[in-house]
């Protein structure tokens, strides 16, 4: 029982990352009708915002320590972050330590800019082109950005630790009446789950309860009619693209302590997030979120030793197997709308 509860929590946690990425992908597809294969790249750029913030906060004054030697036997260069010099060791270390949450301050404007440039510079030229053209253009863009990031940051994963305050795990078991240390879960993963829930709710509330959101939803339903009413739907769609980029970016930044950022992490998530979108139903925001959590939970259960013993290799195919079953039973996906991606 404890294993099942643990894997369920783990599945929700995994699913929260899938849901966040798939939500952004669906926002872009639902509003602009664009199949964005560069969406995983936006997630990766967000993760590197955490790396950049970590490096900014670690900009250091260099002093020479004659008593210590480097690997070539020369006097050692000792680096002390300016944050520690300016605010004292204790506060300085806390600032440096909180680089991941602080990176959101960088990720939001940076990703908005990236989204705006991407939409105005490339995507808008493909609105009326076939989906295959959109896929080629955005996939090409993803590869270019990926290689640029590799040139700048190298191919190795870069460790970005969570704040020290969130190191360690919460003993869930005790809260649920189990023995101590039976069901424990890392604090930072719980923070990520809560963070993604807040973002998901915020996006839904924004679309549901604001005038802007109402216009966007109307545009998603019938773009031409909204345009005929004199509303500049294009401008709003550009903003939606930027919002989708921000969602992917902040998801990536907060994910950095879980999966050390590397240049190909966007590609790792890309295929998965498309499966989530298809299972959820093309163009359905609620479907993307539901499918994200569902696939996360199924993936976790499929990794259990008892399941793997009974069905060897199931952990490698469960997501795709689920997609096949869902598409056979409900060809439009779990919450797919009629007419979306249908001739």
């Amino acid at each position, binding site marked *: 029982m404890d294993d099942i509860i643990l*894997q369920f929590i783990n*599945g929700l946690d995994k699913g929260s990352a899938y849901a966040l990425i798939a939500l952004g992908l669906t926002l872009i597809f639902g509003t602009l009708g664009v199949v964005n294969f560069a969406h995983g790249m936006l997630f990766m750029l967000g993760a590197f915002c955490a790396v950049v913030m970590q490096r900014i906060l670690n900009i250091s004054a260099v002093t020479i320590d004659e008593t210590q030697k480097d*690997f070539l036997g020369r006097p050692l260069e000792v680096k002390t972050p300016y944050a520690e010099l300016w605010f004292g060791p204790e506060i300085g270390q806390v600032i440096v330590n909180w680089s991941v949450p602080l990176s959101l301050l960088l990720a939001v404007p940076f990703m908005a800019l990236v989204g705006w440039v991407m939409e105005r510079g490339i995507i808008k030229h493909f609105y009326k082109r076939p989906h295959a053209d959109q896929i080629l253009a955005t996939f090409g863009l993803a590869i270019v950005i990926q290689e640029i990031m590799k040139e700048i940051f190298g191919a190795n994963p870069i460790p970005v630790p969570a704040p020290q305050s969130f*190191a360690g795990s919460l003993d869930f078991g005790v809260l649920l009446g189990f023995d101590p240390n039976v069901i*424990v879960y890392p604090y930072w993963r719980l923070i990520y789950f809560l963070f993604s829930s807040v973002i998901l709710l915020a996006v839904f509330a924004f679309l549901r309860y604001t005038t802007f959101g109402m216009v966007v939803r109307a545009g998603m339903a019938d773009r031409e009619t909204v345009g005929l009413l004199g509303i500049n739907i294009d401008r709003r769609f550009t903003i939606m693209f930027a919002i989708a980029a921000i969602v992917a970016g902040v998801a990536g930044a907060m994910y950095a302590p879980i*999966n050390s950022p590397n240049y190909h992490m966007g590609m790792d998530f890309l295929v998965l997030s498309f499966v989530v979108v298809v299972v959820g139903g093309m163009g359905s925001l609620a479907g993307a979120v539901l499918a994200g959590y569902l696939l996360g939970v199924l993936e976790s259960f499929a*990794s259990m030793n008892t399941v793997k013993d009974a069905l060897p290799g199931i952990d490698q195919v469960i997501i795709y197997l689920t997609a096949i079953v869902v598409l056979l039973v409900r060809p439009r996906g779990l919450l797919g709308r009629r007419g979306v991606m249908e001739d």
Partner: protein
Amino acid sequence: MSRSRFTRRGVLKSGAVAGAGVALPTIFTAGSASAFTNEPTGATVTFGFNVPQSGPYADEGMDELRAQQLAVEHINGEGDGGMLNTFKSALDGSGVLGKKVVYVTGDTQTKSDAARASAKSMIEKDGAIMINGGSSSGVAVAVQSLCQEAGIIFMAGLTHSNDTTGKDRKANGFRHFFNAYMSGAALAPVLAKAYGTDRRAYHLTADYNWGWTQEESIRAATEALGWETVETVRTPLSTTDFSSYIAPVLNSGADVLILNHYGGNMVNSINQAVQFGLRDKVVNGKNFEIVVPLYSELMAEGAGEAIKGVYGSMNWNWQLDNPGTKAFVKSFGEKYGRPPSNSAHTCYVQTLLYADAVARAGSFNPCAVVEALEDFEFDGMGNGPTLYRGADHQCFKDVLVMKGNENPTNQFDILEIVELTPRAQVEYAPDHPMFAGGDLGKCNSGA
């Protein structure tokens, strides 16, 4: 009306004789002008460096390439000479057999098919006489097989699977790097000393050739100590989030987690295991421990704080205190501003060893080089007295047991040397069950 003097039979006969006449000298000249594949005829000889220049191991590949370039400089008599000052060599600093060494590079992408394609191109288009490099056992086995068919010497880079010099060994292939069996043999006594002989181990293993041989080796070594193997779980190579594999470890009754992972897999799995609080747990009255059988400096950098206090093994490390290591670290460090990794070291050494073997053999003929390398004993290359065993083309030397440094003083000393395991402790018979089923075959010169 005149009759033609040409008959059909006459034309055929004449054609056959003329054809044979034209072909005959070619057959003889082909044999005499090129006695083996890519025999160098000009003032230069070309080495082919096949390393990952793109893909997840690109940083490791770049470090290999730096070392290979340095080796070429030293062979050609440029720079400070590096290990040629400490290794008793037949090279005189004027290239190899009077020919200046030049090189071409290929990108393996850490994919077997891409690695074979780039090696093939370097052999067929660029005339490479020897192929060196790589950061994966899958790549090493594939390229080694290609070189065997082509009549080229393959000096493997980083490849740790038992199979490279086990069931997939080839006469034209040589491995300086250590292997999974040696990791297990070196680590086991240190683990027994540190954690005792009454332990329960849980293995997470990358689901491919290297992972399987690593698991088999470390499992056999730890079970011989008295450790019990609680579970062995295979994880897909593409996994980035290991949480669903780590969660079951918590209540498995295991008190040691052995991560048979390398590269990005290792970086993520160890970080996530630490996040799950495994290292803070007390199980069976003992502190929970993590072991990473194969370490690399670059991956250790990626893992960050998570590797502190974690045991693993290495082929070589820049902190070793011997003349060969010091000479190489000085050359490499002054040129590139950082100490070399153990994959850089093995590629550097392999390039020098090949050049030296050619010089000793007095020929670039692959079969002469094979003969020169087989059962060759040497020193001054940073690992102490070393043997290139003729029976399987595996190098035998001391193995390093490492531990994540608890208090690093700079970005490079993140690992510390715990023990230098003597060569005798990691030796095994060529027909050991973990290496069985292979046959070197005969050397192929391509003639």
